[in-house]
Structure formats: C-alpha cells, structure tokens
C-alpha cells in the first residue's frame, strides 16, 4: 500500500513537518494511521527507515498502545465501552447480545468482514452509561434492542448519521 504515491506524499509531508525526529514517532504513527487506515509492516518499515529508528523499536511502540491497528477493521465498527460506569450499568449484557446476534467475537469481525466489534476502555460519556458506538454515533443509555436495531440499520446500507 506504500506504493500509493498520493498517500506516501502525505506521509512524507508529515515526516518533514516533524523534521524526521525520533521523538515524533507517536505523532507520525497517529497521522500515518489517519492516512492509511491502519499500520502494516511495510509502512512501519518505511517509517522506521525515515526516522532512522530500529524496526523492533517502532514495532514495540505500535503494539504497546492499543489505539494503533495493524490490521484493517470491518466496514462497520461497533465499539463497546468497557469503562467503569458502563460496566456497572451492564454493558456486558449488550455485548453478549451483539456477539450472538451477529455471530462474531469481541475484538474480531464477522466472516464477511462487514462488521467489527471492538472494545474501548472509556469514551468519557460515563453519565450516559452504558454507551455503545455504532460507526460514529454514540448510543447512550443503550439497550440491547436499540443497539441491535442501529447495527442492522448500518449494515442495511442506511449510513449512520455522523454527529
């Protein structure tokens, strides 16, 4: 995917902005993920070469932080919040229901790659717990029924509204 010149040019701009400084690794990884969607090994090798950092160091940093993705995720992404407030308000039951309904496991995607179920430690909307994010829409005070309906809508091609 590196070969894609347009995106590589964008990455080069980012690298230049940061003056190819080692200490900007996190910022550059953030931007690279924005540009490419995820960070594959070819891209990491490229970044490691550009910043003159050992590949194992770059890989170590990428895998240390849970925000960085090494693989492409599903077309639609449901994110369950595992924050304390959501946990106390039974988010677990909703996650189980999603897993059953769409036959996938948390952290994974459906067989057709249409839907991924990810977890996050807190989206910060604790007062509205439990929260589930369907694509870009935060569903507060979520219930099983509501969430499943929203996911079905998203999968059915009706794009979830971005707020």
């Amino acid at each position, binding site marked *: 995917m590196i070969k894609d010149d347009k995106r590589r040019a964008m990455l080069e701009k980012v690298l230049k902005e940061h003056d190819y400084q080692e200490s900007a690794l996190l910022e550059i990884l953030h931007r690279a993920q924005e540009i490419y969607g995820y960070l594959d090994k070819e891209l990491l*090798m490229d970044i490691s070469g550009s910043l003159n950092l*050992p590949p*194992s160091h*770059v*890989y*170590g940093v990428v895998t*240390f932080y849970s925000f960085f993705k090494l693989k492409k995720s599903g077309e639609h992404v449901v994110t369950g919040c595992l924050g304390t407030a959501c946990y106390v308000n039974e988010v677990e039951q909703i996650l189980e229901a999603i897993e059953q309904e769409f036959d996938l496991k948390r952290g994974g995607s459906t067989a057709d790659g249409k839907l991924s179920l990810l977890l996050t430690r807190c989206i910060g909307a604790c007062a509205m717990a439990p929260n589930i994010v369907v694509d870009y829409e935060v569903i507060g005070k979520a219930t099983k029924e509501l969430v499943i309906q929203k996911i079905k809508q998203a999968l059915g091609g009706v794009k979830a509204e971005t707020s």
Partner: protein
Amino acid sequence: MSTNTVKLKIDGVDVTAAEGTTILKAAKDVGIIIPTLCSLEGLTAYGGCRLCLVEVSGTPKLFPACTTPIGPGMDVTTQSDKLKEYRKIAVQLLLAERTHICSVCVADDHCELQAMANQLGVDHVMFERNWSREEIDSTHDFLVIDRNRCILCTRCIRVCDQIEGVHTLDLKLRGKDSQVIMDLDEKWGNSCSCTSCRKCAKVCPVGAIYVEGEPIEHTKKRDVAEFIVERRNRK
C-alpha cells in the same frame, strides 16, 4: 565519577562508597550479595524483577537496590522476613507465569531463576501455573528462542542495543502479553539487523535464548557485557 563519598550502613555494616553508587554495588563491595535477576553489570539498570528490593529505615517503602543510589546516613536492610517472603513470591510468580520445567530445560543447572528458587527455598508455587504455549523460533542458523522460558528481564534487549549496538531485539505488546521480538516481529532467521553475535544467549539468565548444539556452560558467559565495557574503557 564524583570523588565525594557517602557513609551509610548496610545490614549493620558501615560502608563508605562514592556518591551515586547504587545500593546493590555498595553492598557487593562489602561482600553483601543482594539477589537479582534483571540486573547485569555492564548494562543499564532496569529495575524490573524486584528481587533486589531492600528496606531503608525511616520509610515503609521498599527500594530496588539496583537503581537506588546510596544516601548519607542511610540504614539499609537487605534481609528481613518481609523481604524474604516477597522475594519468594516474586520467584513463584515468574515460575508460574510461563512454562518453566527444569528437568527438560536446556539451562538446567545453569539457570539463574532455578538457582534463585533453590537458594530462597521456594519449594513449591502457590499459584496455578499459566501453561504458556509460544512457538519456539529456531529459524536462525544456531540461535534459538523459546519464549515459554522468558522472564522478560530484557537483558538480551539491553545487550543487543547497548553493547552490540544493533537493537535487533525489543519488546512487543505490553503487560503479560509482552514478548521479545526481532525487528518487526520477524522470525529470527529472517532478521535483517541481527549480527548473530550470541551476546543475547550469553546473558540470558534462563534457557529462553540458547545456542543450538553448544554445551550450555559454554554459552552462558554472563559477564560478557561487563568484560566488553571494561575493555572499551581501557582505550
């Protein structure tokens, strides 16, 4: 090195050492050996294994001897019931964390973890063991890594970076999932930066990294880092 010296007490013994010396080193100089696993002379201190925790009077906190510099008037205790208990728990945790089976291990009798368990009287492990099952990587011509025996002391990573200077090795992931990797988590045989210098195998305290077909007592030359640093300083 500062010429200022510091006076302190370690296990009741009066000690004088240069300012900036660690408790570990100051104790060793007067013949008091504090148990360690991740520390190795010639490499930077890591402070990870927590075997070398000591007590300093006046505070309930425990201090890692390998990274804590001595202070004037310090009164250090390196052996107490509490420390003994904690060291035994630390060794048990390491034994339970991955698959450590001495009788089938290449490093049997040349293993620092095994020796530590014996020395501290860890005659059983109170935790249920986590039977890890990491694939053994023997793709390199002669170096082998069995991550099931790794205790994450990072000596190999430090020697690779600080002494050999290539930084082939590092850690991936975090917490209990941490693993020693080569380059972008490649198989060792495919690593483009590894110089096959074997220092990682030499300093590995356990049987996680070894040289295939070589008698273990030949491989485990753990003073290699100290030796090289000394030789370099001589120039």
